[in-house]
């Protein structure tokens, strides 16, 4: 659409709108335009198309570094803990991951670690049934750390390859809830010293700049080893993950592109950047 247009004020404003409109954020957008602007000033970029491609390359460089597939431990159950704020798609993502890895021949077990929200256990139970895998659960109001403990014991006993632990949604600013998450993590180490092997933060693509705060605080509390961004089948672009990648350097594992069990893909930087434009 921009084609052979000359590079001028209007074009820069147009690109600004695209970047900010994709939730890339003011600071990150300006940084990108600034760095690409140098190349414009040095006459390296001749027209709008060249400029647009330079921007894409800039973003792709940041994101490409985070393309990193989830890998399993050579022996013993690999434990994945899924965390994030309320309603982002943790439980649904676990349902998708469970089936996917089962199809890859893995022995998968999931744990209903959300003992707080109404029908959270029932919801995950249905996903377990859909995938045809076992679920470890207690009752509503049980201690999530106890569920985590039991599930790791069960994973070891059954020779599970993968254990995915669901946790209740929680706002990153709630100290007591973040402490609860730390406790769940501590309890896991009692059974398997280096568990959890993956702490996956789920971020909703409709989220604006608050996702940066989420990533920072969850990282500070439990240390993140992976990111998943959901609801990319909607109109939001999820550009906030660029700032997260730039600042925290956490691998981006998966993207959610729908509510069905098959709607999960490995993160691909090129496709992600293409979708922004």
């Amino acid at each position, binding site marked *: 659409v921009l084609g052979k247009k000359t590079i001028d004020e209007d074009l820069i404003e147009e690109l600004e709108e695209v970047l900010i409109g994709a*939730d890339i954020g003011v600071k990150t957008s300006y940084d990108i335009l600034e760095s690409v602007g140098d190349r414009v000033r040095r006459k390296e970029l001749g027209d709008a198309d060249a400029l647009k491609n330079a921007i894409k390359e800039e973003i792709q460089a940041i994101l490409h570094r985070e393309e990193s597939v989830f890998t399993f431990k050579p022996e013993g159950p690999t434990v994945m803990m899924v965390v994030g704020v309320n309603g982002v798609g943790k439980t649904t993502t676990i349902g998708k991951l469970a089936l996917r890895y089962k199809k890859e021949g893995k022995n998968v077990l999931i744990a209903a670690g959300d003992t707080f929200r109404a*029908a959270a256990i029932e919801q995950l*139970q249905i996903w377990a049934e859909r995938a045809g895998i076992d679920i470890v659960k207690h009752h509503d109001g049980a201690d999530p750390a106890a569920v985590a403990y039991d599930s790791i014991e069960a994973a070891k006993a059954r020779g599970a390859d993968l254990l995915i632990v669901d946790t209740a949604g929680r706002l990153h600013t709630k100290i007591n809830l973040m402490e609860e998450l730390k406790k769940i993590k501590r309890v896991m180490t009692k059974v398997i010293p280096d568990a959890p092997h993956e702490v996956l933060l789920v971020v909703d693509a*409709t989220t*604006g700049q608050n996702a940066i705060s989420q990533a920072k605080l969850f990282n500070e509390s439990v240390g993140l080893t992976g990111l998943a961004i959901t609801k990319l089948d909607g109109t939001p672009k999820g550009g906030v993950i660029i700032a997260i990648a730039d600042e925290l350097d956490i691998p981006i594992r998966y993207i959610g592109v729908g509510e069905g069990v098959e709607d999960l893909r490995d993160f691909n930087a090129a496709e992600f950047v293409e979708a922004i434009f």
Partner: protein
Amino acid sequence: GLTEKLNGVFKALKGRGKLTEKDIDLVLKEIRMALLEADVNFKVAKQFVAAIRERAVGQEVLESLTPAQQVIKIVRDEMTSLLGEKRCDLDLGARPPVTILLTGLQGSGKTTTCSKLARRLKNEKKKVLLVPADTHRPAAITQLKKLGQDLAVDVYNSDPSISPLEISRKALEYARTNTFDVVLIDSAGRLQIDEPLMQELCEIKEAVDPKEILFVADAMTGQEAVNVALEFDKVLDITGVILTKLDGDARGGAALSIKAVTGKPLKFIGTGEKSDALEPFYPDRMASRILD
């Protein structure tokens, strides 16, 4: 927040004597950046800044001894009035049973908000019927049933094998027969670009003629809040907005974006996961939150 930023900008400008329009442009740029950082939509931020530019280049600022304070006041006043001059409550002005339909994107907090509204209405001595009309999400009906049980509020026994439209119709019939005052219908989360699902909401609206169609939006929503809200409003002619998860640190710029493009009143805010965590929306408090 914005106050410190503007104080900094004005301090740097002060040394040069009387303020010029060009100086004000610098100040406006700072304001626009602050709004964008708070997730206000790009176009909405631009319009907002253009609107206050008029006042910012007037006497009250250029001749003021405390120009930063003047500008902050203008910004705050303008934002508060944009967000809605006064409190706006639920409209229950119809022959009972009055129907309220909750809509929005996936995970925004509709089901939880339904239970919060039920509790509020029960406290106002209304006989409330909660209607789980989400037959798609696993255990959605169970979720609303459990929430209703905790509140001792009746929950319609939705049959998951029939359509949400049929459930809504039957539930309204049930409400009439059993003299309920208010019917709260919880719908499945959906994308505004999902035509069949948006059409489904239209059909439910047609069938039960809701007095309120509430758009439930997550306070941490980014730039797309505008497109999502516009589409829901265009298709359904929503009557109000509820912004959830304001107990976090999301600045909530989506509130300004949604109000600016739909013109529909922001009625309540969600401030927690429990059924008592629903508060009326106060424009001045929201303005402070976005600006600070």
